[in-house]
């Protein structure tokens, strides 16, 4: 009987004592000896199991052909498994992973905990790398206290994805004009968005497929509304301002949108559900990752007959929530130089261009302005919109406790959408919690 009681505790204690599986990593070639060093090296790379990973894995065959002494082994896994695995690898005396990817809420936390290797010297030595070519806001995520700890892998900034055919429909245009006395257009303000969303709902199609799921999802979506209302989580001095008038307005409008324009019973919806609603033609718009557009428009993609009818715009208000993955090297790897060789090759202008043409999410300005990419990829308009989105984007949250802030604020937001807390109470509680998290020693 007693062992039943012990199980929950054992989980914790064992996790501490357990060692992550070890991979033997021979000594890396020194920078002087060049990439084609005689010592063979195996790099273990942790990846998230997403389409972008498949592209990287495919490209890596070229890397291995070019650098025969460096062997790459990928370990791809779902997002939720990554944080634990990374931490176990950081704490082990010998790293499990030699090359890692870091999600933006984790960057400050991992860098300040001393888990990551500064990359400034590597970047400075790399000829033709052109670090400044990465879009500014993406580049800044990898910089912690003046040092660079990560170089961009792919972006997941948010954009407004709409059914262009519905907006272009003369019938809808006439009806909208008759009702509101103005043309049916892609919304650029929150009020305009709500008006359009409610209009489509009246026409029998949900205005917005929203993602009010507790925690990360609702925070990620609502923060775009917050930016549009002129608010933010913190002001420039670092004070918590998530309970000010702008935030109130943003949350009130968001809840109105949920109640009056979103599919019913979608309080628990995340990315999958809203995508499915839009792909199935049940919703006219959604705020989602910019690279969902090519997926939706793919002839054999999830949208079926609707493929080709979707378009991407900047979110209402212009400023978007920025998410990004960065490549980084753990401090405890024995193969740092080889790890950098791989990262530098993969994020170089040439390889990155190949990656984006194959469908990878863009990170470099030069690649997004390259006519060859437009032509072989998804067209000039798409890349120009993505560039515009990225240039005016701000990370979800920063600081060593970003993960916790995102989850806790996201809990109060979801409570407000569910109606179990008033807008005022939810934002007050969110602000108080954020202050508590930030001020904790």
């Amino acid at each position, binding site marked *: 009987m007693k062992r039943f009681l*012990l199980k929950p*505790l054992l989980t*914790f204690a064992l996790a501490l004592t357990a060692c992550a599986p070890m991979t033997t990593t021979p000594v890396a070639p020194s920078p002087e000896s060049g990439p084609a060093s005689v010592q063979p090296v195996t790099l273990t790379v942790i990846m998230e199991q997403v389409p972008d990973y498949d592209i990287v894995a495919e490209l890596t065959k070229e890397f291995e052909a070019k650098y025969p002494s460096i062997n790459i082994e990928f370990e791809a896994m779902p997002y939720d498994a990554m944080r634990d695995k990374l931490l176990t690898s950081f704490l082990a005396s010998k790293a499990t992973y030699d090359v890692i990817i870091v999600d933006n809420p984790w960057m400050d936390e991992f860098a300040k905990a001393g888990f990551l290797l500064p990359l400034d010297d590597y970047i400075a030595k790399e000829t033709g790398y052109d670090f400044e070519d990465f879009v500014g806001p993406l580049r800044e995520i990898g910089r912690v206290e003046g040092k660079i700890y990560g170089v961009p892998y792919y972006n997941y900034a948010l954009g407004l994805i709409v059914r262009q055919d519905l907006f272009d429909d003369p019938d809808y245009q006439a009806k909208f004009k008759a009702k509101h006395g103005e043309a049916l257009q892609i919304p650029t303000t929150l009020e305009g968005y709500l008006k359009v969303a409610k209009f489509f709902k009246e026409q029998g199609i949900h205005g917005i497929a929203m993602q009010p799921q*507790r925690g990360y999802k609702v925070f990620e979506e609502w923060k775009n509304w917050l930016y549009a209302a002129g608010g933010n989580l913190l002001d420039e001095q670092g004070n918590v301002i998530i309970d000010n008038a702008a935030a109130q307005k943003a949350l009130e409008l968001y809840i109105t949108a949920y109640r009056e324009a979103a599919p019913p019973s979608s309080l628990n919806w995340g990315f999958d*559900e809203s995508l499915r609603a839009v792909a199935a033609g049940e919703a006219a718009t959604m705020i989602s990752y910019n690279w969902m557009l090519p997926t939706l428009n793919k002839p054999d993609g999830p949208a079926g007959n609707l493929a080709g009818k979707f378009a991407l715009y900047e979110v209402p208000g212009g400023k978007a929530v920025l998410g990004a993955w960065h490549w980084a090297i753990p401090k405890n790897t024995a193969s740092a130089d080889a790890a950098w060789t791989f990262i530098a090759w993969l994020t170089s202008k040439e390889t990155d261009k190949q990656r984006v043409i194959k469908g990878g999410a863009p990170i470099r300005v030069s690649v997004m302005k390259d006519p060859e990419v437009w032509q072989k990829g998804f067209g000039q308009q798409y890349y120009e919109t993505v560039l515009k989105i990225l240039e005016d984007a701000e990370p979800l949250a920063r600081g060593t406790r970003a993960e916790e802030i995102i989850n806790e604020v996201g809990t109060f937001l979801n409570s407000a959408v569910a109606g*179990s807390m008033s807008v005022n109470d939810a934002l007050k509680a969110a602000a108080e919690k954020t202050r508590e998290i930030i001020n904790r*020693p």
Partner: protein
Amino acid sequence: MHIAFRYRLLLPLITALLLIVGYPLGFSFWVSLQDYRLTAIEGATWIGIEHYIALLRNNSFWTALRNTLVFVATAVSLELLLGLSLAMLLHRRTTLGRNFFRSILLTPMFITPIAVGLMFRFLLNSQLGVITKLTEAIGLRIDWFSAQNALLTLALIDVWQWTPFMLLLLLAGLEALPEEPFEAARVDGASAWQSFWHLTLPMLRPTLLAAIVIRMLDAFKVYEYVYAITRGGPGESTETIQYHIYRVGFLYYRLGEASAMAYVLIAVILVLVVTLFYSLRRA
């Protein structure tokens, strides 16, 4: 000499238990008394019972504990009721196809809980859920994952998966009961209800106790359904204690605080189990 040899035989087991159970348990208690964060293990300082005191003011923790207790009470009592009814039915020799039903009814138990969670996430989905469509067809529009219903929905999923366990245990208990008292009762003219109430239930008490305690302890560990379906939402309405501890310990890396929570949980469970034992034994 004989006794010494007996104890010597026990030694490997005791050593193994000390290593696998004793050490982690002691270590996690030590961790709970420190400001132990996984991102700053070196800087961990001794803070005594501060984490425990802080828990008193931690609303999320108590909400999670309350949710868990509601979940356990709802799920286990429904499972007991259903399990016992089914066991009685399958115990009757006159029930048609009892062997077939015995095996078919056990199948939910063999599915891993995370898969059950994912299955029901789709079955109850408001867009494409089969169950949602069926209830809508009879005019019932249920929002399974609303703030009011979500916890109950999770409890019902648990009932679907674990009633078979109750059934299995209680059926075994029923089959182990002696025939004679029931025959004597029949001769004395006892009704079916009377022989259930005065014979079956009292004689089945040890089995019932074991079944309830095992299911209860198991239900306290609920994590998979929450993780796969609601992530604790809407708001905090399905935040269970294990999920909360996981978030604090492994998402926020505050292991000291998470260990303190785990110890409070152990205390709560111990009190419950001891009370249950005493009340059922005495009765």
